[in-house]
């Protein structure tokens, strides 16, 4: 599978909900439709809730990956302004 290149990366390690989503949402708002946001986080609950909220906002979740003992990487494609 082809590697997806993100257009913007944010590191929200250390943040808890709801600020995990607040930060992610502000980041994606500043992007163009079709671009991909990469989110690095270490708050487990957010690895479920951010993808769910992003889909509810009309965006597409491309990847949710647990990369080590503590961290997750999410890839979200902006599909709605």
């Amino acid at each position, binding site marked *: 599978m082809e590697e997806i290149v993100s257009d913007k990366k944010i590191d929200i390690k250390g943040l808890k909900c709801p*600020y995990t989503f*607040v930060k992610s949402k502000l980041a994606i*708002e500043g992007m163009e439709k079709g671009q991909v946001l990469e989110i690095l986080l270490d708050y487990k609950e957010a690895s479920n809730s951010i993808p769910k909220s992003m889909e509810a906002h009309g965006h597409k979740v491309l990847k949710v990956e647990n990369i080590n003992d503590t961290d997750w990487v999410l890839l979200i494609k902006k599909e709605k302004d």
Partner: protein
Amino acid sequence: MDFTEDQIMRYSRHIILPEVGGKGQEKIAKAKVFMIGAGGLGCPVGYYLTAAGVGTLAMIDNDDVELSNLQRQIAHSTNTIGMPKVESAQATFGALNPDVNIVPLKFRLSKDNILDLIADYDIVIDGSDNFPTRYLVNDACVIAKKPLVSGAILRFEGHVTTVLPGDGHCYRCLFEEMPPPGLVPSCQEAGVLGVLPGIIGGLQAMETLKLILGKGDVLKETLLIYDALKTTFRKVKVRKNPECPVCGDNPSIKELQDYEANYCSS
């Protein structure tokens, strides 16, 4: 607009909402609202709009805080009795949210100053307690084409309506002329259960935020009537009156007139 970390925290419950987001919060932060009165209605309206982070909040009121206000005017306190209401409210709102530019105006609103005062503002909120002011504000907003969120309370009943000049009714379409002084209850009779202005002012603040955000429906061509004793909300349709003296097709009121009458205006 770049929010500070503190602002992101402060407004996070707004930003999370799909209807608001960072862009909506930016609109709120740029909004300039002009509030008539810092009393029963003005206190909750100003309090919530300050919490919401509006850019500029002007308020005009010529009265000082009295002990009898404190049963309902929640921005004032026992410690601010005797202080101008606009200064007392400014201290309260400023402590809640230092982001908001609060403009206190301690003088009487009149036909000679209102158009200049509201010229730089996006939305006018009427929380006055007397008919001459209510008609003056309506006519000025129609002439200046400023959205107006109007509220009124008496005893156990409250009214809210939103006037969008050129797009719907105005207050005179609803009640063309002021009631004759004999029909207006004197201030002594006009008791009010203290929570009522909180509910009506809350509705006015909500109408204002929706106007700023451009989301949802506002009370355009609608009068909302709340009966606190029965706990009912009733929406009454109000048509724009083509013969309205101020917003009709051939208006007779083209400039502001003298609104003074023998009403109690406390």
